[in-house]
């Protein structure tokens, strides 16, 4: 086949794009529905958005948002992520004892509904164990057996004072979260190529250090997106703190005000808007976290000449 003369060769492409008429139809339908909604917001006085805005900025609501919802989320996720990663490492360990403990933990805490768990912690634990003695295991029995005057107890913790507060709530949500995080972290650790731990081993790195410095940072790339999901779910699950009962929490506080003035819907709108705001902020945070742990994995191809061999420039 002969090569066509230079002037005959096709030049740059200027083609018409594919038309999408149905997209325009869809946009029109959505625009009409949106207009109807907005119109109802304005004309239907029961929405009462100005009241919602007022409820949002009431001091008890802000307090509940900060001390219950935000603090609860942060606390529960700190416990959940760190304990979850620990459980994942234990589950992947060769040590059968650690493996067993982690498996039972995950099995147990994944099976209990969070609401039930929080009721158990808030009401049940304090009823079963009023106080927690710190001392020698079975110290009282041993002391009785040998007729000692001491009970071998060094201190006593008031259990009710802890489980009935936000501390008990954070503990319950965190313990439950750790069971889910363990599975997420396990998937992340397993996603890291085996060659990475072998390279660390070959350099003489102890296992713990290899996990912390080589495996986990790479696993985080896989762990962070579902953890963002879990964090957002946790923001909403702090509304379960009422099971403890902890009332310094966003949804309870907006509800309390709304009930008092018989305006249920504006109260619910107020808490919905706050949840939207908090979750939006978290999504921005997640973006930066993903970018941090994604370093070195970018799609950026080097400007290396080996890769830049232009097509058609003729090889040897």
């Amino acid at each position, binding site marked *: 086949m002969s090569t066509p003369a230079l002037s005959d060769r096709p030049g740059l492409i200027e083609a018409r794009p594919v038309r999408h008429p149905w997209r325009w139809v869809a946009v029109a339908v959505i625009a009409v529905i949106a207009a109807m909604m907005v119109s109802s917001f304005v004309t239907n006085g029961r929405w009462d958005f100005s009241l919602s805005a007022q409820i949002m900025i009431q001091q008890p609501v802000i307090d509940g948002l900060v001390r219950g919802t935000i603090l609860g989320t942060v606390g529960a996720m700190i416990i959940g992520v760190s304990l979850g990663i620990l459980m994942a490492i234990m589950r992947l360990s060769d040590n059968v004892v650690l493996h067993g403990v982690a498996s039972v933990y995950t099995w147990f805490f994944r099976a209990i509904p969070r609401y039930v768990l929080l009721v158990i912690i808030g009401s049940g634990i304090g009823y079963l164990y009023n106080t927690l003695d710190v001392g020698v295991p079975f110290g009282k029995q041993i002391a009785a057996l040998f007729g000692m005057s001491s009970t071998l107890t060094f201190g006593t913790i008031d259990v009710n004072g802890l489980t009935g507060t936000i501390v008990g709530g954070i503990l319950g949500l965190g313990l439950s979260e750790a069971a889910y995080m363990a599975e997420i972290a396990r998937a992340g650790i397993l996603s890291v190529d085996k060659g990475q731990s*072998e*390279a660390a081993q*070959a*350099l003489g*790195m*102890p296992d713990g*250090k290899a996990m912390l410095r080589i495996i986990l940072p790479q696993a985080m790339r896989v762990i962070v997106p579902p953890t963002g999901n879990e964090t957002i779910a946790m923001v909403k699950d702090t509304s379960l703190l009422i099971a403890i009962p902890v009332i310094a929490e966003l949804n309870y506080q907006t509800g309390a005000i709304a009930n008092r003035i018989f305006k249920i819907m504006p109260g619910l709108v107020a808490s919905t808007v706050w949840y939207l705001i908090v979750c939006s902020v978290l999504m921005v945070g997640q973006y930066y976290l993903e970018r941090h742990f994604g370093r070195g994995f970018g799609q950026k191809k*080097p400007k*290396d000449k080996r890769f830049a061999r232009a097509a058609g420039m003729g*090889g040897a």
Partner: protein
Amino acid sequence: MMTPAAQDPGATGRQIGMPLVHAVNVMKAFDGNQVLKGIDLDVRKGQVVCLLGPSGSGKTTFLRCINQLETIDGGRIWVDGELMGYEDRAGTLHRLTSKAVAAQRREIGMVFQRFNLFPHKTTLENIMEAPIQVKGEKKDQARERAIALLARVGLADKPSAYPAQLSGGQQQRVAIARALAMGPKLMLFDEPTSALDPELVGEVLAVMRELAKEGTTMIVVTHEMSFAREVADHVVFMDGGVVVEEGEPKSVINNPQHDRTKSFLRRMQSEPQALEHVPETLQEAMIADTKRHPQEAE
């Protein structure tokens, strides 16, 4: 089989007068599949030994046994007079703790077929990681040495590149620098050029050739016959988990005695992409590469 001058495999403690690597009757099975059926190997200080053989012959497994990435079922391996993986207490072997095994590995550098660089760290951080974290070197000192090592493998201009931004040949050269940063007594290479595009093989082999010239003790599993012929002091041909033939490269490669060696070498020599000659220096490798691809030159 070269026999070392003085040795007593049964005795405890460090062995004097033993070759740097002294492996006796090494055996290894995976799920009942006997991969190594009693390998003997001696490597003296400064020697370059190439392990040749068809895939599945056990050469990579044997290499991994030397630095304990695989535990052996039988036989013994000593590196610099130290029994690998076990402590001999009055004739009874006690498995070493993972900490002690890690300490033994510090003396042995390893380069993998698939590079295994840490993708979340830059080239400089890859090289500095082990000296700082394992040896407890000061950061400034480690950085200085890492920069020198990068220059030595011809990548002085890439200290802050991530591995994904480098070509395969460049990644493998960083991996060599990373292993050298621990100042190992012995370097293990597990098919270091098998995952590379043919045009990138030369630059890695050139770096290895320069290491050999500097007197680095190396055990190299490879399919590059030119490297075995030109750089190795001793070649070992393995097949089916045993050493079939070994000796000087000239005699084994040019005049093989066993049929299995002969048929393997015939197959290797008919490889169309085989490198004819290992570049003497990295510079030579780069010039050869530009000659092959003149359009890349500016």
